[in-house]
């Protein structure tokens, strides 16, 4: 059936299209996928087309359908909010491979992959380190909206902190926006005033919070991409989403003509998630050791974050 597959020969590049909700360089969710596609290109002969900034779901849907009609091999609907549209579009294009996330739902379709991340694991590691580094005993979390991988990360983070010292206060503040930088800054300010000397946060709005953190010398933990650019002097560690882990599996399926929709979850044990430490802010040896121990435990299954 390889020959029938839209006439693509082995030499032709695999055409991958991606639709992302925010800017390709947002230092967060969308950028993590763009970076991953770059890494994927090192191993496979691919051609990539990106439509970013489609925060309006219907615009994304039109782009998704457009890519499918244009004959792309793989269409990535990078955003859990796109699932509703994808479930309606995918059945119309049985020969196109769709992937979306973060999610664990393929709508029972064989041409739909969904990808998710066990982001509570990185949260747990970050939380463990944070618990060791706080002196005030108060930690602040600036979250956007309480959904999906974000909620997982923050819950994991809180669990990580509590695993070290249950008496540490973790103030969690969901500001209800992925993008409101000003609100994020003010939330961070409130955390600082509540005594926080360590903070974390997710999504593109955190740039507001990291500004406040820098001003007050508050340490920062990131997720999704390496957030060192937001403050070399405060960013301690970041959990990194390596979507190329999931992407490469989908590409392999395609190349081997074994496409069958399934859920692919990235975690530390399969290498879909990794930690990045700021070389400019090396951890104390004992703290690094504790972090490494947690990572190892998560990898070999001897440790669980306890987050649902």
């Amino acid at each position, binding site marked *: 059936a390889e020959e029938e597959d839209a006439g693509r020969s082995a030499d032709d590049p695999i055409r991958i299209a991606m639709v992302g909700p925010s*800017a390709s*360089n*947002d*230092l967060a969710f969308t*950028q993590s996928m763009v970076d991953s596609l770059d890494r994927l290109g090192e191993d496979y002969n691919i051609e990539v087309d990106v439509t970013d900034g489609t925060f309006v779901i219907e615009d994304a849907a039109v782009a998704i359908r457009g890519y499918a009609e244009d004959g792309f091999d793989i269409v990535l609907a990078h955003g859990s909010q796109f699932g509703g549209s994808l479930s309606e579009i995918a059945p119309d294009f049985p020969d196109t491979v769709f992937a979306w996330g973060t999610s664990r739902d393929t709508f029972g379709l064989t041409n739909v992959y969904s990808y998710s991340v066990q982001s509570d694991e990185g949260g747990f590691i970050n939380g463990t380190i944070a618990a060791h580094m706080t002196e005030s005993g108060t930690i*602040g979390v600036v979250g956007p909206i*309480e959904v999906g991988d974000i909620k997982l990360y923050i819950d994991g983070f809180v669990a990580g902190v509590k695993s070290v010292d249950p008496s540490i206060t973790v*103030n*969690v*503040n*969901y*500001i*209800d926006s992925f*993008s*409101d*930088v*000003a*609100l994020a*800054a*003010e*939330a961070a*300010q*409130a*955390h600082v*005033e*509540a005594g926080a000397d360590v903070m974390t946060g997710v999504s*593109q*709005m955190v*740039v*507001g919070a*990291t*500004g*406040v953190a*820098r*001003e007050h010398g508050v340490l920062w933990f990131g997720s999704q991409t390496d957030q060192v*650019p*937001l*403050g070399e002097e405060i960013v301690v560690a970041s959990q990194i989403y390596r979507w190329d882990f999931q992407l490469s599996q989908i590409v392999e399926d395609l190349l081997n003509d074994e496409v069958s929709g399934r859920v692919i979850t990235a975690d530390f044990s399969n290498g879909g998630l990794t930690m990045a430490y700021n070389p400019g802010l090396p951890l104390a040896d004992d703290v690094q050791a504790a972090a490494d121990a947690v990572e190892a435990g998560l990898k070999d299954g001897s440790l669980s974050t306890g987050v649902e």
Partner: protein
Amino acid sequence: MSDFLTVSVLLATLASGIRLATPFLLAALGETIGQRSGVLNLGVEGVMLLGAYGAYYATLRTDSILFGILVSLIVGGVMGIVYGVVTLALKAEQGISGIGIFIFGLGLSDLLFQKQVGTPTPIDGLGDVAVPLLGDLPWVGEVIFHQNVLVYVAFLLVPVLWFVINRTPFGLNVRAVGETPEAADSLGVSVDRTRYITIFVGNAMAGLAGGALALELGIFQQNLTNGHGFIAIALVYFGAWRPSGVMAGAMVFGLVSATVLQWKTLGIVVGTTASIVGMFPAVLTILVLVLVSRRTGQPSALTRPFERGH
């Protein structure tokens, strides 16, 4: 958490409120002077965004905050000239062209940011400065009189603007032009020149308001202002076109936002209640507009283009 009523939390909220009120105040004062001369500028939000981007980008490239502030003023002023030409020379409907300026500012600031900067790169924002003497007060001084310099500028502009409007010949012209432009014109006061100046100054202040926001946050991003500009316009109505009233309104909004954030941080409001709290400023604005609808002080010529001989 039970400690949300402690003195330190209240003071922190107050300080936060003052800080949050600053961009509102700067923009609303700028809008006030424009409206006193009879020009409604609904594009404040767009001008704020351009000012914010200008300040951010200039500071990013030169590392000079002062230069950033200057750029935000200039960017605002240039938009003022544009708006002046559109509404004064072309006599465009002010309500709609203001919305056009808003959309333009929203798009252009985002476009420039994506093209020129891309990845959000933080800059060193405005540091806090203690007011001599007052800053040394125990408790209060620590919290309230340690603010960035634009906060002081904004609050100082309140009496300055009052003085200019009520005690200078230029202010007399502004009041006359906003009320009865024909009368001012018949006495040789140039209606257009007066309005060009107020629009220029008003927009420069809107630009500065955006700059204050960007420099306080040390960052720029798409739609940074997120509705500040529109609330600033409502504040002019709230304040009955008087600087002191506008200041009171800005403080109310600053404090409400600060309190909401404080409550969220302390976990007093969670989840979906947050949406209810999120609509609070808008509901408050409408209530305020209902209460001040006596319109005392609204310049009679507001939104009315002036054409000699008509």
